């Protein structure tokens, strides 16, 4: 896609998208939002970048190891489940700290689980879309 407007705009949109996705991720426990929705929005800018500049260019600009994201996310989610088992005796039991952090709010295992979901979704969507966009292999 060779349109000047999208080419220029995408560079400014990436941080906005990522920030908004993080916002959705962290408000997800009490309000609409959460790991899956945040992850979808977080993957969008990278997919759009690849649509504008091509997959190879996108991989060069963002040299993240996307497949690692899903392993990381799955491990985070399962460790959230296991923390509940270890400290409360129930798999997936929610552990909450008794203090508040700025932005994140009250830290606890549900947030950890949501972050895991976020990572899995971002990793899978980006990898999937790169595979779909790429015609050459």
């Amino acid at each position: 896609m060779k349109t000047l407007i999208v080419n220029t705009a995408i560079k400014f949109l990436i941080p906005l998208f990522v920030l908004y996705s993080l916002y959705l991720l962290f408000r997800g426990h009490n309000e609409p939002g959460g790991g899956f929705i945040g992850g979808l929005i977080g993957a969008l800018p990278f997919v759009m970048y690849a649509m504008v500049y091509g997959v190879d260019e996108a991989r060069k600009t963002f040299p993240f190891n996307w497949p690692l994201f899903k392993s990381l996310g799955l491990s985070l989610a399962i460790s959230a489940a296991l923390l509940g088992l270890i400290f409360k005796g129930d798999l997936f039991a929610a552990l909450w700290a008794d203090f508040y952090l700025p932005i994140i709010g009250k830290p606890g295992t549900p947030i950890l689980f949501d972050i895991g979901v976020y990572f899995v979704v971002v990793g899978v969507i980006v990898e999937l879309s790169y595979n779909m966009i790429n015609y050459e292999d």
Partner: protein
Amino acid sequence: MEIVLPFVVGFLFTSGVYLMMHRNFIKIILGMALLGYAGNLFLFVISRITLGQPAFIPSDAEKMGEVYADPFPQALILTAIVIGFGVQAFAIILLKRTYINIGTANLDELKDED
């Protein structure tokens, strides 16, 4: 207006199944998507729609109000959507691979060789 929804469900099921009968893989994928919508909408309708009420406890209240939307089917539908999304993504990648490797998306042209 709720009376419309069962008919929509029926229409979606019919067109989904019809599309899945096709020999063309693309239409099968579209049929799968429609079937997914039909199933989700069905779940939504059958668990009694509550209009304009939240499915969670408002932050200034102690418990649910008198009338509230059942959050359970919403959770089920969300899960079902995510799963359907995964299956469709797999199907689309499979379609792409098939088209690149074999050069057709028509099932009739994929003859068994044995």
